[in-house]
């Protein structure tokens, strides 16, 4: 074999294994993608040949992603578990990458030392480090690595025409496509086409003797000479690319991606969104940015001309939305589906051979001598030192990016959740995680229970998800109104998806869960809060799946490993035969095209210097801008912004430091004041936008009008605040706001309440609940139900009473029908109802018919999504009748009813009032349900108001409710013959239980108002308690 081993390559491999092998254990599990691949691997480990997976998205096929890497992890998992498999495959990918870069560099530069340099640099190159340690894209890495291994073989086939090279190159292409589908397709364009160009150049050079003599005509001649080989290779590799993962292509054709584009950072304008610029441009390029002139100079030399074009294209495409060019090149569709960071990755990989060459020349040969002659040895040492320092800094920074900016929530112990799902047949229902980040994939891999959510959005099929530009329901709060709105739809009609349990790792979602009718079950020992919904049927024991022909399953299960096996045998065997046949090592053809490293271009050195200075200036300017923006007390605007930022992130000490030191508020007092404010705005809101307007400013005082927009799980809140800002010693400070001094009347007081406990199963058994332990469903009565039309949307409104003796959790499902009894829409009451009723308690309700409620979901979902906006209905299908199904279940939770309406003041446009909390729990989010009546005291509409602030015990809270705008409400039907309670007709059950009901009993106590459309209103109160005592 080789006479001497390449010591640089050996060093690169050792450093690579030591550096990455150690750090992956701290980074890989917190990357974006690694756990998704682990989940897929778990699928193959449990059912290798069955591509249907029920665990995510109510079922999807794993044929939507090339299987090799997942199957490899699965195979290793049989030895030491899934994570062992993951790390083993990661280590293999590191080895493949380093050797791949070595071979690619050797092919390009024909110099073993240069290739060795490139291999060492590749180990620490920031783009590779980022792809592995931040993104966790193992299939991508393996794909590009194997492709780099294939390139020399392709060169040799094209150059020599020996069939064994055709075989080896095709075998490697096969492995590439089995590990990542996008890599060989784009690899063809960006790596193989320029390579073909280089082969033709080399062939032309051989005919004329020197590169300079190569003209276009000679090039064309050489091209035609090699044409058969090129076309042969092209056709065969196309066959390989299609054939090896044929089921994937069939699946893509049968289930085209209907997903609306999901925003991705790599498509942002990097100048506007600097965080995307950092992650998708600065980090992957890293130090290579400094050497860009060198790369372009070298790649635009005649031999590498086509690599130059490809490199330019990749560089441009990698800039995402910064310039319009990528969108023009790719077209709208491709631009919105592809993540563009891959182009930057490939560009940086393409630069690696030349980076190695530059390092070699700078350290050992002509560049060194040139710099030393011109600027002196010390300058050379400093320059090399700075470059090396920057290079190392970038890779260390990138590896530990997760430390500086955690992309994932804290690691969650999954065992308690897995145990919970295994208990008591909890896995008979679907579950949903909230605030788990990508760790949800790891939970999914460990449990047999199914989820409605998932982490591979290309495979989604539910229109509720594919029509929304959200990645996962799980992190919907980061997607603003659209995310929360989408989550709300799932929470409102969970029985459609058999969704019963929610594991919440983020308090943010608590309020929406409560107001959608969910109840807290308990906190697991890992701190995860479990929420439960009553009245959800378990999943059917047989679930639908897409039938996939057996041959596809077999192909999918066998071919990927077969390609590896064949590639292994062919490549290793050829080496072996070569070694045996000839004692002398045959020199690969590409080593005949050596470069001359004698004189480094003067102009290039100059340009590189200028470019570096320019870069340095840009960086310095960027840092300066960053400083100006972030120096929190420089201007009144900055101090306001910094203060709100600090509050948003609950960094109260930072916030305190921005408070006027002369205001005599101690930090203890400040913290106390912050801690006593609870409510939707202070505990559950995320600051979306802030607009600061300085209305008055002199040298020492300024007043700011601050318009803030907050995303809360329930609705968006806009708020206008006025703050006074004062200046001391050149720094601006905020004047503190004063607390409501309201003093509660009683120091110590008592309250008697009835509490309930449901034993569930009285016997400790794993069997189904005994018949006699099943409680009767509480009897409810629909007092009124009306189908109305208001402002172009339909709603069922009405009143419901719990006429039983036990407290009830109520679920209301309304269905709209047209004249021909065709069901048009079906939805549940969301938060226009009190979901928990004491015996004999009444609640008004309203059922909206939001986006997914309508049967023609695809058409009816508006392009821009807002949960408060309703779907316009086609005029040809007007709802005329409705069906109302009410179900009660015994629940002893969330029955706090001690908030009272203590004062009210009504004018023509609004209601002002005060709520008083007379009980012993602090109410976090009070809600008002306001029912409107006409002059005949007929119900017309039900509206709601969430109070922004909570109410502490024995304290008051004011509210202001703007009355509905003047707009007539049309009553379409008040035929209550299709109202059912627990499956029985409402009329019969009402007659049996309350035979002599006093109709419209409390109508004498309706609040009169003066309004053109409405004459009376009724106010009901509902409360969410965030932290029950």
């Amino acid at each position, binding site marked *: 074999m080789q006479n001497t081993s390449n010591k640089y390559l050996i060093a690169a491999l050792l450093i690579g294994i030591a550096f990455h092998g150690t750090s992956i254990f701290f980074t890989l599990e917190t990357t974006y993608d690694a756990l998704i691949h682990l989940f897929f691997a778990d699928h193959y480990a449990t059912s290798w040949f069955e591509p249907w997976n029920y665990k995510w998205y109510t079922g999807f096929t794993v044929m939507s992603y090339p299987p090799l890497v997942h199957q490899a992890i699965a195979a290793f998992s049989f030895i030491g578990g899934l994570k062992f498999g993951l790390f083993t495959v990661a280590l293999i990918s590191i080895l493949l990458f380093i050797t791949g870069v070595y071979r690619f560099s050797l092919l390009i530069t024909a110099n073993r030392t240069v290739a060795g340099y490139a291999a060492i640099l590749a180990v620490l190159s920031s783009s590779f480090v980022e792809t592995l340690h931040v993104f966790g894209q193992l299939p991508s890495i393996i794909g590009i690595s194997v492709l780099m291994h294939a390139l020399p073989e392709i060169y040799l086939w094209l150059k020599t025409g020996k069939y064994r090279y055709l075989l080896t190159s095709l075998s490697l292409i096969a492995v590439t496509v089995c590990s990542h589908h996008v890599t060989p397709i784009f690899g063809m364009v960006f790596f193989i086409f320029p390579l073909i160009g280089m082969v033709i150049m080399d062939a032309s050079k051989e005919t004329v003797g020197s590169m300079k003599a190569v003209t276009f005509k000679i090039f064309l001649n050489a091209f035609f000479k090699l044409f058969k080989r090129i076309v042969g290779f092209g056709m065969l590799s196309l066959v390989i690319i299609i054939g090896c993962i044929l089921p994937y292509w069939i699946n893509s054709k049968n289930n085209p991606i209907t997903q609306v584009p999901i925003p991705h950072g790599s498509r942002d304008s990097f100048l506007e969104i600097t965080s995307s610029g950092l992650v998708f441009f600065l980090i992957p390029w890293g130090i290579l940015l400094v050497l860009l002139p060198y790369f372009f100079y070298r790649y635009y030399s005649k031999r590498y001309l086509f690599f130059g074009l490809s490199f330019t294209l990749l560089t441009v495409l990698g800039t995402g939305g910064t310039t319009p060019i990528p969108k023009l090149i790719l077209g709208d569709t491709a631009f919105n589906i592809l993540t563009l960071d891959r182009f930057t990755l490939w560009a940086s990989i393409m630069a690696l051979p030349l980076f190695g060459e530059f390092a070699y020349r700078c350290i050992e040969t002509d560049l060194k001598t040139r710099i030393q002659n011109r600027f002196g040895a010390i300058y050379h040492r400093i320059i090399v030192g700075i470059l090396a320092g920057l290079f190392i800094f970038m890779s260390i920074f990138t590896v530990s990016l997760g430390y500086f900016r955690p992309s994932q929530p804290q690691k969650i112990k999954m065992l308690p959740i897995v145990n919970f799902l295994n208990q008591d047949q909890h896995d008979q229902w679907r579950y949903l995680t909230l605030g788990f980040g990508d760790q949800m994939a790891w939970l999914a891999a460990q449990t047999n229970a199914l989820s409605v959510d998932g982490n591979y959005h290309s495979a989604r099929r539910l229109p509720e998800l594919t029509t929304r530009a959200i990645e996962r329901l799980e992190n919907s709060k980061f997607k603003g109104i659209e995310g929360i709105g989408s989550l709300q739809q799932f929470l409102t009609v969970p029985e459609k998806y058999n969704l019963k349990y929610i594991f919440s790792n983020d308090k943010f979602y608590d309020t929406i869960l409560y107001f959608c009718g969910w109840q807290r079950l308990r906190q697991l020992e890992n701190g995860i809060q479990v929420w439960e919904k009553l009245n959800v049927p378990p999943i059917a024991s047989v679930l639908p799946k897409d039938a996939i022909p057996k041959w596809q399953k077999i192909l999918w299960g066998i071919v990927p490993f077969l390609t590896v096996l064949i590639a292994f045998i062919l490549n290793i065997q050829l080496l072996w035969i070569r070694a045996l046949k000839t004692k002398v090592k045959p020199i690969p053809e590409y080593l005949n095209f050596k470069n001359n490293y004698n004189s480094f271009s003067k102009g290039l050195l100059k340009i590189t210097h200028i470019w570096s200075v320019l870069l340095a200036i840009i960086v310095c300017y960027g840092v300066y801008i960053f400083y100006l923006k972030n120096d929190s007390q420089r201007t009144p605007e900055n101090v306001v912004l910094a203060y709100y930022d600090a509050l948003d992130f609950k960094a109260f000490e930072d916030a305190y430091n921005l408070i006027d030191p002369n205001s005599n508020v101690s930090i203890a007092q400040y913290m106390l004041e912050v801690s006593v404010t609870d409510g939707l705005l202070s505990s559950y809101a995320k600051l979306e936008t802030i607009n600061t307007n300085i209305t008055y400013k002199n040298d020492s005082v300024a007043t700011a009008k601050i318009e803030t927009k907050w995303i809360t799980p329930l609705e968006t809140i806009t708020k206008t605040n006025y703050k006074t800002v004062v200046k001391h010693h050149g720094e601006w400070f905020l004047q503190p706001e004063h607390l409501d*001094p*309201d003093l509660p009347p009683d120091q110590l007081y008592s309250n008697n309440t009835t509490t309930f406990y449901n034993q569930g199963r009285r016997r400790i058994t794993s069997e189904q609940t005994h018949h006699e332990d099943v409680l009767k469903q509480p009897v409810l009565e629909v007092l009124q139900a009306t189908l109305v039309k208001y402002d172009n949307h339909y709603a069922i409104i009405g009143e419901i009473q719990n006429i039983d003796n036990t407290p009830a959790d109520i679920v209301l499902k309304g269905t709209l029908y047209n004249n021909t009894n065709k069901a048009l829409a079906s939805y549940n009451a969301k938060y226009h109802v009190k979901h928990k009723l004491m015996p*004999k308690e009444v609640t008004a309700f309203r059922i909206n018919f939001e986006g997914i409620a309508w049967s023609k979901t695809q058409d009816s979902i508006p392009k821009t999504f807002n949960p408060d906006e309703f779907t316009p209905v086609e005029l040809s299908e007007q709802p005329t009748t409705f069906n109302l199904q009410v179900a009660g279940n015994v629940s002893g939770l969330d029955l706090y009813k001690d908030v*009272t309406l203590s004062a009210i003041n009504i004018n023509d446009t609004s209601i002002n009032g005060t709520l008083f909390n007379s009980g012993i729990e602090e109410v976090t989010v009070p809600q008002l349900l306001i029912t409107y009546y006409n002059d005949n005291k007929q119900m017309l509409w039900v509206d709601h108001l969430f109070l922004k602030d909570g109410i502490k015990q024995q304290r008051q809270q004011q509210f202001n409710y703007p009355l509905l705008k003047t707009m007539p409400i049309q009553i379409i039907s008040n035929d209550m013959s299709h109202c059912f309670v627990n499956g029985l007709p409402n009329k019969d059950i009402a007659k049996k239980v309350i035979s002599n009901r006093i109709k419209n009993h409390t109508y004498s106590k309706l609040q009169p108002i003066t309004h053109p459309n409405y004459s009376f209103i009724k106010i009901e109160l509902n409360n969410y308690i965030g932290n029950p005592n």
Partner: protein
Amino acid sequence: MQIKRLYILLLGLLVLSSATRVEFTEYKDIKFLTTQSIFSAGDTIILQFSAPNNETPNLYCSHSYGSAVISPVLKQNILEYTIPNSISNKSGVVLWQLINQELSGQFEIIPKTKVNSLETYIGPPSIAAGGTDYAMLVVIPTDDLDNPLKENTPVNIKHQFLASEENDNITTAHLIAHKNIYSKTETGRILLASECLGKHSKEYDISVLAGTPTDFNISATRHHDYADGNQITSFSTSILRDVYNNVVNDGTYVQFFITNSEGNILKTSGTTIKGIATASLIHPDYKTQWSIQAFVNGMAESDIITLDYKQVVTDFTIAFANNTVTVGPLKSFMNQLIPDGLQVTLSVFKADTEVYTKVNAAKEGFAHFNLKQLNLEKGLYSITVKTAGLEKTLQNINYE
């Protein structure tokens, strides 16, 4: 070629003829030999047929759990079909037919006569007192193979409620025995037990809960009758009972409507404990009269009581200096400073148009409003302050 074709033809004929021969064979003399037509569940059932041709046709069996095809055992020209346990353990009629034969028939499997268990269901588990609501007890006596016992098996049902213990004898009909247990006028718990042929069930129970409440009275208590906005008035009901004088169930929701002098309706609510619901509300901060009535919606209501609240703040002063409005001192009925938290509303007018309204709470007898934040233009304004039902205006203040 010719010879080959001939061979094929001959071979084809041969095959065809043999096939037709099979088709026309008949089991002419097969006869059903078993005479017994009623079996007890769990017995080994063997159907015998004579088999003169030594042929062994399969027997097709069908019963309520499904169908089965049984292969025979041939013993000395007798075909024996052993009916599998899955069929012979279950009571009911079994139809049989020999496959490819005209011969068919049926036999019956009857349940055992010994009770092994009493399958008992009761529902609903809670009913209302009053004698019209009822729960149904269903008893299914079964043998050890889970077959319901034969029709008219006697079942004895006992139930106890308060002092009464009743005993009823019923019989099974259509496999089950059932009885409706009606509530009495009292609330409590009915315990039930059943017995069949010496086998006893476990204990079951039905809760008898109170019926709908009837009208009731309410009362109010308070520390004083001043409208200071800082004390609590408590309301409570008399004991809520249904028509049979049973105390309503704990947790029954009673809503109190308070109509004040302005005709506005305030609300509070309580849930009953031992029939009494209590609710409370904070005092108003201005002179008013409350008339209070409580409801159990659609079922019962209370009498109306009225409460008067006396004015505490009789007067206050407004001062304007440094662009700040100071209201106070606000004094209560003994000239003490009003407790912190009294709401003071400030409205700022410019030429009769309201430009700003803010509510602040009084602290240590004073409320302050800083107008600096309002971004007002310099000039003359008038301000109105409302608190404790009083209203005062300050004209032509100069904002600078």
